């Protein structure tokens, strides 16, 4: 079938997944009774008399006297109209949509950078590790990868911080920019940069290369920490796939054609070997999103992960639902992109 038909089919399947996801989280977070919602929106300074009235009003507004699944539909309806409720956390209070607008860009930047690192470092290492099997490169890559894979995310981050931040003093490890540099900059206020909220892009847009450089420096360690954990699994998978492919008949046939080894590896073998790691990239992204939560806390980066942790630790219903929605959609979109890439590379599955 045509490519676009394939895409439409995938999109259609993904919608129920998101609905299921949000429904589960909704039920979970509202099963604790109506108190959480009330705690969210109730003004604590109201005197006791007005409080009851306010509570009644809130119950009406949020349909809290209805069963949970009805409440869910009201929530869903509200979401489809663009209203995601309010969030109330130490780092930010206000409409959820605005919170997303503020925090999402940083997380995206971080994840994208980490993914690029995995791709750029992982593919050559994975391919050559398989080709120069049991050589020095292979052995050290495997040991290194396995060790990184076994480390908890925070340990990777801290080790990097200790090596590069403390001993070598090369890279910064807190926040998104050197505060001194951004103090008097017009487009940076209250910790948020405008217009795209991504510091490095805004700095480039404004032609301020010094700030851009500093922003980049601040991104390296967090992105690297994220990348290193996923890199290990990626390389192992690519290596094993590569070894698999190299043992297949058609590779032998290509050798019999007299094609030089380098081309055999890059044109024939690699293309076939990359299919499985590519599909697993979705899980990699999922892992990244999970890791983002920890990394943002450690490196003080105001992103979705940080906000999510705060929301959960502070029983912030609006924040929980909002961030769950975001995570779900992100994963779903990533999954779709991977599927498209897969269909582009492997002509067999289009049929």
């Amino acid at each position, binding site marked *: 079938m045509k490519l676009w038909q394939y895409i439409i089919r995938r999109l259609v399947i993904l919608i129920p997944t998101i609905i299921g996801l949000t429904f589960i989280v909704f039920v979970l977070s509202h099963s604790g009774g109506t108190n959480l919602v009330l705690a969210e929106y109730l003004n604590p300074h109201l005197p006791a008399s007005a409080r009851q009235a306010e509570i009644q009003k809130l119950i009406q507004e949020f349909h809290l006297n209805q069963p949970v699944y009805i409440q869910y539909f009201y929530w869903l309806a509200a979401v489809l109209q663009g209203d995601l409720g309010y969030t109330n956390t130490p780092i930010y209070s206000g409409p959820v949509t605005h919170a997303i607008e503020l925090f999402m860009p940083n997380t995206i930047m971080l994840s994208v950078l980490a993914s690029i690192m995995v791709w750029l470092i992982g593919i050559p290492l994975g391919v050559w590790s398989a080709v120069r099997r049991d050589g020095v490169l292979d052995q050290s890559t495997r040991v290194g990868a396995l060790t990184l894979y076994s480390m908890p995310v925070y340990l990777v981050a801290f080790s990097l911080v200790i090596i590069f931040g403390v001993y070598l003093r090369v890279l910064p490890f807190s926040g998104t920019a050197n505060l001194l540099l951004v103090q008097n900059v017009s487009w940076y206020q209250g910790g948020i940069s405008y217009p795209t909220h991504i510091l490095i892009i805004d700095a480039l847009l404004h032609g301020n290369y010094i700030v851009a450089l500093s922003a980049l420096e601040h991104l390296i360690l967090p992105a690297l920490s994220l990348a290193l954990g996923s890199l290990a699994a990626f390389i192992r998978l690519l290596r094993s796939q590569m070894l698999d492919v190299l043992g297949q*008949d*058609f590779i032998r*046939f290509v050798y*019999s*054609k*007299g*094609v030089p080894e380098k081309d055999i590896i890059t044109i024939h073998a690699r*293309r076939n070997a990359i299919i499985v790691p590519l599909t697993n990239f979705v899980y990699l992204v999922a892992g990244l999103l999970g890791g983002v939560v920890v990394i943002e806390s450690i490196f003080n980066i105001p992103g979705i992960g940080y906000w999510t942790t705060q929301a959960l630790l502070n029983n912030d219903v609006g924040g929980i639902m909002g961030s769950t929605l975001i995570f779900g959609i992100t994963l779903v979109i990533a999954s779709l992109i991977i599927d498209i890439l897969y269909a582009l590379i492997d002509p067999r599955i289009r049929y």
Partner: protein
Amino acid sequence: MSELLTVRDLRLEFYTRRGMYKVLNGVNLSLRKGEVLGLAGESGSGKSTLGLTIMGLVADNAKIVGGDVIFAEHGNLITNAVWPDGKYVAKRGRKIIKRLNSQLLHIRGKEMTMVFQDSMTSLNPLLKIGYQIGEVIYYHNPRLLAERALARNRATREDMREVVMLLKTREERDLTRFLNEKGLGGLYEQINSIWQRPGMSEVKKERAILSLAGQRLSGFEKSVLEAVRDNKPVTNVPLYRGYRKRLLIREGVRKAVELLSDLSVPHPEKVVDMYPHELSGGMRQRVVIAIALANNPKLVIMDEPTSALDVTIQAQVLELVKRLKSKGSSIVFISHDLSVLAEVSDRIAIMYAGSIVELGETYDIVNEPKHPYTVALLGAVPTLTEKEIRGIEGEIPDLKNLPSGCAFHPRCPYVMDVCKKLKPDLITLGGKRQVACFLFGDSK
């Protein structure tokens, strides 16, 4: 020496966790120019491994422990790949194979090619057919591709009309002279391919030939192609190299269309744009054969090319083999099916447990088999006249644990004492026949 290929005392061992398998135990054979040598044997006899080893396609866990493979003017192909002594170490094995691969780069795909049994697994599922055929010409004969394109660019319609006239008068020598005078030598095979295409009316052929003229090439394209034609070294700028390759491969795909139509593949222009899984088994096999023929190799090794196909396609493949032979290639045809071999080979070699036990002209082998194994094999072939199919007693030998002396002795109805102790060499009996059996004397 009119011997194209000589294999002398070739020995090869396989190393697995379960043990060491002696797959080739002193193989001796030779192949003359322009002949088809059939290689027969049951599964496990080592015939496929022999074919692969001649090409130098040795598996990672295999070790060549002795012997020569002498091919045309290239001498012994496996000189540096033999390591008889020392324990088998995987790393060393891989290094040796890598070196062998780079040494054989210019021979494989050009002077010596191979056709595997399963065409589906021979082709890269992610690349188009056109690329897979064109690539083998790109790596070995890029000049040809450049010349073809440049010739089309230089030719005028008038030139082509002249060509058509010459074709009609069937003066081949005049045609070649004409083309060379005009510097259009690169058009020769393109013209011929169209003219020889079966099932096309003469009018259509004329039109096709006329359309060969006036290929448009941009100035840059032309310069790249001319650089290839004049054999200038390639600059290392990656974009340039990529562009150059793409141009040449594009021409390679054009040639692929010609090759496929030569092999009677219908709608070859469409086939080159397809992927392997979209084709039928017979078509795929023809694609693989097209790849093997593309550079007019001196030697083609075919490993069970008919075994995975039904009988009608088998017949077509055998026709192709005969055509190959008429074009001057020599063929090693490996099969377990003696009837197929009898049909297509000039000589037949019988293989058992890693060595050749009998070798001779096809007619002689089929009608007067000498080695007890050959006799038994022929007895096991079902025919229309004989009612009884006789099997062979016993089992094929365990290659981890070969029997002493002659490998066939446990199953041989004529076994003698000496057979259990010594291994018979191949002795020549009266000119063209060779047998390795003590029944016929020994080399001492």
